[in-house]
């Protein structure tokens, strides 16, 4: 009975592993560019993350990353389709070929680099501490943060920062959830992207009483492709081209991120 159980379990596992491995077969990934050209669409995995990817009043996806992706799509000669994903599942989505690329202000952490093939960094960002305004004065430097409880997005650069600095934290499933934690008082503070903080908190946003203070780490944004994909190199070349012809500068100015661009 016991051995039979074990056999069944190992069979199920073997099945699952084949499934998960099938998605990242190196052979098909190496010809990603051809694969995308053949099917005629580049599917870009994103989340609602202003100012990189967000919807305009007509419901079309715009933003620094979105516009850049459209430019790459033009050069590939394919349509660009934006697919809103659960950020936790980005690697699943890639390997499952439901998306072709993760292009959403993605911080290049070790975790990300291990599980995807990433382009060179094209943008810098910082992780900042978000606090209620009335408490901001007490927490101006890193030492003062030790006694606070933090909310961070699971697997984000913010989580890494909290881990590195030895801060007490709870992982939540998104950056906006982390902000909700602070607003609800269930966490004292959150660690999120500076770019996100600029768009989401302060006057005229959903969280007018929150502000950001200490800058913990700075980080770089990259674009994620399937492991072993030739699309990575293709996008790298595209981006150097956009730098030299001024496209980067132009789009950057449009969305207020020109200071953050990494010039080559």
């Amino acid at each position, binding site marked *: 009975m016991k051995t039979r159980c074990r056999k069944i379990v190992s069979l199920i596992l073997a099945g*699952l592993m084949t499934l998960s491995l099938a998605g990242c077969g190196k052979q098909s990934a190496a010809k990603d560019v051809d694969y995308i050209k053949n099917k005629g669409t580049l599917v870009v995995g994103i989340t609602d993350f202003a100012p990189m990817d967000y919807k305009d009043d007509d419901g079309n996806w715009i933003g620094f990353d979105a516009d850049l992706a459209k430019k790459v799509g033009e050069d590939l000669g394919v349509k660009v389709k934006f697919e809103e994903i659960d950020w936790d599942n980005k690697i699943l989505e890639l390997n499952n070929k439901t998306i072709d690329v993760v292009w959403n202000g993605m911080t290049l952490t070790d975790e990300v680099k291990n599980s995807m093939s990433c382009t060179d960094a094209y943008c810098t960002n910082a992780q900042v501490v978000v606090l209620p305004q009335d408490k901001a004065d007490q927490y101006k430097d890193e030492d003062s943060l030790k006694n606070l409880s933090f909310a961070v997005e699971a697997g984000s650069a913010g989580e890494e920062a909290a881990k590195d600095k030895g801060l007490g934290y709870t992982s*939540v499933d998104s950056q906006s959830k982390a902000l909700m934690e602070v607003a609800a*008082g269930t966490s004292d503070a959150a660690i999120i992207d500076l770019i996100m903080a600029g768009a989401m908190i302060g006057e005229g946003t959903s969280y007018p009483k929150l502000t950001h203070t200490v800058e913990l780490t700075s980080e770089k944004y990259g674009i994620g492709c399937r492991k072993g994909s030739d699309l990575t190199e293709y996008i790298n070349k595209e981006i150097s081209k956009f730098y030299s012809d001024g496209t980067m500068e132009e789009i950057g100015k449009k969305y207020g991120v020109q200071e953050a661009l990494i010039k080559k």
Partner: protein
Amino acid sequence: MFVEVTLSLLKGFLSTVELFALTLLFALPLGLLIGLGEKSKIKVISLPLKFIIWVIRGTPLMLQLLLIFYGPGILFGYNVWGGNSLGRFVAALVAFVINYSCYFAEIYRGGIQSIPVGQYEAGEVLGMTHSQIFRKVVLLQVIKKIVPPMSNEIITLVKDTSLARVISSYEIIWAGESFIKSAGIIWPLFYTGVFYLVFSGLLTLLFNYIEKRLSYFR
């Protein structure tokens, strides 16, 4: 790697089982009270209960979890749960107990209503007290009636515990997903299914056994 993943998932599964067991512990009796209250002739008791059951059964459990955990802080500026993992677990437990009590209440109510009035009357003319009629005559018949729907609901609860992750109360799915983020491996997430299957399989056996034990009468 397999051993490491299994141990980590087991730890997550422990939280799942804790949430499951404590939800049952509180929701089974609370559901009975709500079910009896809903049947009460006193409108002040029955109407609010009917309203609550309507709201709880009419909205997603995920929304109830978010509202119970974040609601007090965001709406009233007062966070009642604390932010540590115990506070999150308690908030999740409260949400699950309320939600499942309402479902159980409906099952109890259906079970009690299915007992013919003649059973009560037979007890009465034989000089039994109300509590004797309930304990000696009605109870076992109600239990027999509610075992099948109850087992359905309880097996659903096993799987619903995964919703606790929306308020970052960690359980096995979270433990499985964390491997995607930390090591880039996906199979642990699917492997969690094996734990659910084994657990709900055991429960199914238990309920089959109970049903069999109660099959001596009709």
